């Protein structure tokens, strides 16, 4: 440490990575910081919570049904006597896992298609019509068909829960990459005409290097933002699928399923809707704030202001 301090000012600047600057900028966005804090908290709670709170989320204790908060059940129990806190943890695991994985899939697909369409003019028309095609697809019938066709095969190959997980992640992934692709393509088109790209092309940089060295780092900001929005979107879509009975088995808790199950008891036990509803909306909100903060932090023109 002392070595570092003693080295010259210029050198320190050079050693600072781009990510340091991003983090510095990110820190100034209070909402993003709070959002990040909450998101980490939710992640930790969902994945480590079950190791602390040992009640099985699927265990039915019928004598303890419809209970309010108590020491044994801090958030009460549902209409079959299952512990709400344990179900919230278990539901969070699934919802977050679906959200993050589906986002990753949608993002890589969207970026790939966006960059190729933007960079290679010959493929642009075809790929964008392909994107239009997906945008025009009615989501629900598509889901029904996919689930009907592949449910049984995936179930036998991976078991009911993993099979449905793969299916849902896949379905959400391939139906939500289009916006990312459009945004990325637009940015790539603009970047392609910039002087530094033309300069590097003039010295014979091959396309793959051009994309990885010059294009991708510069479109990172919109990609990051759509990533965060994608997580939120995937969590909500999974909830909607559970609503329609197309998602996981009915006794397998996810946040959407918890919300759906509690709507019938809204009048008598409003808190039961509150917890999963709060979890979904706060997670989505926090992710959106992170996205907002990242957008600011990743844009070099805003950074430092």
């Amino acid at each position: 440490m002392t070595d570092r301090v003693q080295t010259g000012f210029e050198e320190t600047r050079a050693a600072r990575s781009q990510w340091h600057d991003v983090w510095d900028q990110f820190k100034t966005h209070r909402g993003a910081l709070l959002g990040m804090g909450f998101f980490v908290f939710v992640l930790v709670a969902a994945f480590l919570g079950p190791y602390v709170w040992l009640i099985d989320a699927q265990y039915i204790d019928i004598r303890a049904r419809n209970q309010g908060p108590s020491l044994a059940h801090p958030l009460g129990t549902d209409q079959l006597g299952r512990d709400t806190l344990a179900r919230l943890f278990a539901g969070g695991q699934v919802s977050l896992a679906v959200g993050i994985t589906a986002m990753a899939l949608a993002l890589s697909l969207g970026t790939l298609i966006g960059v190729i369409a933007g960079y290679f003019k010959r493929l642009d028309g075809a790929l964008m019509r392909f994107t239009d095609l997906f945008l025009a697809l009615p989501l629900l019938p598509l889901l029904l068909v996919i689930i009907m066709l592949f449910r049984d095969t995936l179930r036998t190959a991976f078991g009911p829960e993993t099979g449905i997980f793969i299916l849902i992640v896949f379905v959400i992934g391939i139906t939500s990459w289009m916006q990312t692709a459009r945004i990325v393509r637009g940015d790539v088109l603009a970047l392609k005409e910039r002087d530094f790209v033309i300069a590097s092309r003039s010295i014979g940089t091959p396309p793959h290097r051009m994309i990885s060295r010059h294009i991708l780092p510069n479109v990172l900001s919109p990609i990051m933002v759509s990533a965060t929005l994608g997580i939120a979107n995937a969590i909500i879509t999974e909830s909607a699928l559970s609503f329609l009975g197309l998602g996981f088995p009915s006794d397998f808790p996810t946040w959407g399923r918890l919300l759906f199950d509690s709507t019938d008891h809204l009048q008598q036990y409003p808190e039961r809707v509150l917890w999963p509803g709060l979890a979904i909306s706060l997670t989505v909100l926090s992710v959106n704030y992170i996205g907002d903060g990242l957008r600011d932090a990743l844009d070099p023109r805003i950074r430092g202001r």
Partner: protein
Amino acid sequence: MKLRTVLLSAVAALALAPVAQAERGSDGHVNIIYWQAPSTMNPYLSGGTKELEAGSLVLEPLARYDQDGNMVPWLAESIPTTENGGVSADLTTITWKLKPGLKWADGSPVTSKDVVFSWKYCTHPEGGCAQSEKYNDVSSVEALDDLTVKVTFGISKPFPYGPFVGAQSPIIQAAQFADCLGAKAPECTEANFNPIGTGPFVVSEFRPNDVISLKANENYRDPAKPAFATATLKGGGDAAAAGRSVLETGEFDYAWNLQLAPDVLANMQAAGKGKVISAFGTLVERIMINLTNPDAALGEERGTKKHPHPFLTDMNVRKALSLAIDRKLLVEIGYGDAGRPSCNVLPAPEIYKSTANDGCLKQDVEAAKKLLDDAGWKAGADGVRAKDGVRLSILYQTSTNAVRQDFQALIKQWWGEIGIETELRNIDASVFFGSDPGSADTFQKFFADVEMYANNFDGTDPESYMSNWSCKQAPSPETQWQGNNMPRYCSEEYDALVAEMAKTGDLKERARLAKAMNDKLMQEYIMIPLVDRGRVSAHSNTLGGVVLNTWDSELWNVADWHRMK
């Protein structure tokens, strides 16, 4: 002197009170609410329950069903049977005799011509009569004399009580409807809204889809009835509002068909203004067991008789599944007053109800475990029983419905306790019950190991219902997956019972056969009945004489209703 007069008149009033109660029109006004509004008073022009029930205040059949599903003579003197000679030995004719001295509300006599006319009205080739199936196979209806009617069927009819029995086929006045035959039927607004009947009330004002005002029938056959001088039947709203108006605010005396969650109804009843009543029909929530192998690897032949199920063909497993279920708890959670545990797939009418299977009411996990142990199903490392490499792992499907998903979760836990692994699946109701041969998720295709739904039958005669489980009713690719035998059960003995019932006319003998069929299905555990689901209505604490009836109109005995003092 003055005091004596007061006392005397008080005594006189007390002495007169019981008499006054038995006098027509002495109890003032009764308010009835139906949360679906009737659009006509003529049940022949509507298939809706609300119209049937509204019409039953005014129009009456020859015989009705009581609360146990037994027939009681209404306008007829007695129920014709083969024993009293009313039904011919070859089961092709039935002869009804009207009560003597019956009068229409306008004072004219009721004759057998009115009965014949009612048949003509409903079977007119140009008219779309909603109840024409009641007159199926009727080749002629003749008036033998003023009070005798003979119905002749084109075929041998073991159950000849379709025409003129129940709220669906009442007698209408020939004089009033003479010009309303066939295509003109819907145009006779006056007759359809204000039919002249024999019932306890007559319509004084009919506002379609809104309110019906009625007053007591001056010519009703029992001079002491009805106790109410006027009645209002209000339509519209929803079940919750109707329930509230009777149970919480007391504005109405009777509310029909309150399909609400048990705790919601209990909360309303706690207000103390009225009572929730329930009656049970034939609707049974049951688990069907697949006797064929639904494995997707079998392709086109999955779920057909060519491939028996790997473990559900073992009766011990099926019995263990049934033993592990606590039906009382299911009722308590899902239906409250609107349900009761059932051990029969044919729970009613009373004469068809078997008592041979009532042992199922008690949950017995230990016995279930022992049964599986003895049958050689040994628990593996994961707690799931297996034999010869076949694991007891069940896919359990049903339609999407909050109560059903709760049932699934509970039953899964109970089955888990006896070492049977369960995977749950719920399918959108419109797909599940959709009968689309292109969909793999219908309840007929039954590509699962067990499935749960409710079913019942129309009317009181179980013949066609019980024949659902004959061999030829099994859905298969050859039948485009149509059919009602979901378990694909096939037994020669059972089919013989079905065939015998089709040619038996005697009611007691028919009851014996129906019970035998029910017991056979239950004792072989082809299906596991869970809950007998009933109908729920409510009446105010001051309304007396209400007997809820699921076999006929709920207002079937409205003449006996009175104000409690």
